[in-house]
């Protein structure tokens, strides 16, 4: 095998951002890290994507907020979060104890909301990048509509880019006819990278009551069930843009990470699998070098887009 040291083997670059390894927990599935810090040292992670942050505190949707599906789950949390002031005072300073790039997922109902939270959050010490959540299916007004129209997505990206002091990754919705056109418009508007995919909109009924299990009726489908959709979208988008992609959707193990890289991702996020195994992120990171050996690859970054690069 090649000559890279172990730490060089897993290092990846997302534009100007260097991650010591390509694995981060996905936004909304890891809070602000506190709960998992009792399981392992968060510095082992490549980065962290924290829960969506909005200008004001949000209390989210009524319960039940989760429902199980075959090889997946639905959630309708509804962007519950303590609001940006609290995030700035309580969460971000706490995260600084770790050697850990922080991606702050931001959301809003209007362009002004997004701009305000982007402006404020991106000034904070220890914030590595913003992840612009234009794709959450669980909030009634705004939210998803930003992610389903190329022009609206591009305008929002442009406004946020104007104020942000850090790179902006735009998190795309898979619930669209043509994700490539949204990705390319967002790139033109100045996005530094893309995160994909957010959840698919889905629903489950309880046949005993005849009613939806989620109080919000529909929710976002995540987990292994959606992996083939994520791979297909990353495959298509990565061939059409020149900005890096953080891939996510059903990742459970190192083999899945390799598949996302080969489809075109430059880093990955793990969401739902944290609920199944709280140690999944460090376990996946630790098993990557052996997989690279198996695949005859020196550095994981070499895998990006290998599926379509000929």
């Amino acid at each position, binding site marked *: 095998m090649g000559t890279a040291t172990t730490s060089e083997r897993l290092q990846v670059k997302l534009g100007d951002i260097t991650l010591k390894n390509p694995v981060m927990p996905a936004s909304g599935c890891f809070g602000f890290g506190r709960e998992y810090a009792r399981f392992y040292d968060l510095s082992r992670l490549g980065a962290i994507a924290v829960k969506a942050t909005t200008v004001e505190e949000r209390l989210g949707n009524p*319960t039940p907020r989760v429902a199980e599906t075959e090889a997946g*789950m639905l959630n309708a949390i509804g962007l519950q979060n303590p609001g940006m002031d609290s995030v700035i005072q309580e969460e971000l300073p706490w995260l600084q104890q770790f050697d850990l790039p922080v991606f702050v997922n931001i959301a809003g109902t209007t362009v002004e909301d997004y701009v305000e939270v982007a402006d404020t959050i991106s000034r904070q010490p220890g914030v590595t990048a913003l992840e612009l959540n234009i794709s959450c299916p669980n909030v009634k007004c705004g939210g998803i509509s930003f992610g389903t129209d190329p022009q609206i997505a591009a305008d929002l990206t442009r406004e946020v880019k104007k104020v942000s002091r850090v790179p902006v990754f735009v998190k795309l919705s898979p619930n669209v006819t043509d994700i490539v056109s949204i990705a390319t418009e967002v790139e033109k508007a100045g996005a530094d990278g893309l995160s994909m995919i957010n959840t698919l909109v889905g629903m489950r009924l309880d046949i005993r009551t005849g009613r939806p299990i989620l109080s919000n009726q529909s929710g976002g489908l995540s987990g292994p069930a959606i992996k083939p959709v994520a791979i297909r979208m990353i495959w298509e988008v990565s061939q059409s843009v020149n900005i890096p992609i953080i891939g996510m959707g059903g990742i459970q193990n190192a083999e899945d990470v390799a598949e996302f890289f080969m489809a075109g991702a430059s880093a990955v996020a793990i969401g739902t699998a944290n609920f199944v195994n709280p140690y999944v992120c460090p376990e996946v990171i630790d098993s990557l070098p052996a997989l690279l050996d198996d695949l005859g690859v020196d550095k994981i970054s070499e895998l990006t887009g290998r599926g379509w690069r000929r």
Partner: protein
Amino acid sequence: MYDPTGQETLCPAGVEDMTVVTNERIAERIFRMTLAGNLVDKMVCPGQFVHVKCGSGSVPLLRRPISISDVDADQQQFTMIYRVEGEGTRLLSRMHPGEQVNVLGPLGQGYPIKQRKSGEHAVLVGGGVGVPPLYYLGRKLVEKGVRVTSVIGFGSREQVFLENELKELGDVYVTTMDGSHGTRGLVTDVLTVGDVDPWDVLYSCGPIPMLKALQELYGKEQTEAYISLEQRMGCGVGACLACVCHPSEETRQNTGKRYFKICSDGPVFGLREVAL
């Protein structure tokens, strides 16, 4: 939300493939499973739960929360009692001794018992699969010299379990909806009729209507009382915000708290602490 024992900090939860020691049907759709492993060392606080992976693949995907019903520290074994509801518990019910079950736990804040003093009287009020955690609690209370009375309710005679075990700890009143065993009616029917001696503290776990009835009966008084709640969970550790519940108006005003996470702030709350 209190941290009665500080257990949460002392004993961080872990994940372990635990070994099935026994797994047997004890009532209609009700199974008792005993599991062995090192995690048992951490299960010192009654009222906590474990988050159980049922089956090894990705269907069912999420873990299932089940209360710790008893602990045998010497044998490094704990017991859980569960009702077969859907796919997850059905898979659990088919496990054989010697097989492995992946367990995450112990999780949550259990019933506060530190302040309890010898000679006090505690009443345990349980309904259906809310009864299991009360057994371990009762054992711990009796160890402290607390007198324990149990009031437990079920649908019908076939669904009754833990009656004899609880009798070893103190008086037991059983109710069934259809009257096929014990008193016909609900646990609150026993409580209001006045048969049970006055108590210093009440601990409860069961369906929401039962807990609401308790709030109505005792919510205004200053009785010390605790209830354990259920909600569909994702992570089970406080990260995903799937399992929130509402603080009572009183709690909101006193603490500023606008929500609780049942998995990590609970599942046990003060009777007046939450709005049901």
